[in-house]
């Protein structure tokens, strides 16, 4: 079974600064996907960024980037130039390759607060 661990229940950052959220996972799979989802108070889960395990290059989406360390089973999210709208709960999630099923396994979440 897969497990996802987020060891930072809460984090805060000043507006315009950079923050990194940590995530580690455990799996025996070789092909899989990793995701970061954002959940604001409205509860709508929004995909922030995804990483395919077979790709060595770290994914980047505008101000969001990841540091994917496959051997260490680590998948951190870096948010640059933090904005007030980034305040939300952030979940790291794992999914086995589609041929093995498509259940998302989530971590416990990190509450990020961006302060003005």
């Amino acid at each position, binding site marked *: 079974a897969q497990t*996802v661990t987020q060891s930072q229940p809460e984090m805060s950052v000043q507006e315009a600064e950079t923050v990194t959220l940590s995530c580690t996972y455990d799996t025996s799979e070789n092909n899989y*996907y990793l995701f970061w*989802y954002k959940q604001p108070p*409205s*509860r*709508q*889960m*929004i*995909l922030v960024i*995804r990483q395919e395990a077979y790709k060595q290059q770290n994914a980047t989406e505008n101000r969001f980037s990841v540091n994917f360390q496959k051997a260490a089973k680590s998948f951190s999210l870096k948010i640059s130039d933090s904005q007030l709208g980034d305040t939300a709960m952030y*979940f790291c*999630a794992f*999914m086995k390759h*589609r041929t093995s*099923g*498509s*259940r*998302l396994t*989530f*971590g*416990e*979440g990190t509450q990020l607060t961006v302060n003005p």
Partner: protein
Amino acid sequence: EAGVVQSPRYKIIEKKQPVAFWCNPISGHNTLYWYRQNLGQGPELLIRYENEEAVDDSQLPKDRFSAERLKGVDSTLKIQPAELGDSAVYLCASSLVTGNYEQYFGPGTRLTVT
């Protein structure tokens, strides 16, 4: 393109009462998921449908929970009877079957059992 629609957004019931949640996925999405999210935790899968077939229901408490997706489009999740521990947010998500692994989530239904 309309997103995943869920109703109701909030529901308060007394324990032992039945409750039902409805979900309409994004048009054309064959795969539908129901997740339960307890307070302060990440969502956990209850059931996954491929069209009208439930292909992963290993974590659905079958003694009190049931789900259906009769025509392979919208879906209903039912709890009967509800228990205090069922208080949670119930999230529905959908995705395309092939060539796309991204799941799109609805706003969820917050259930409070008193």
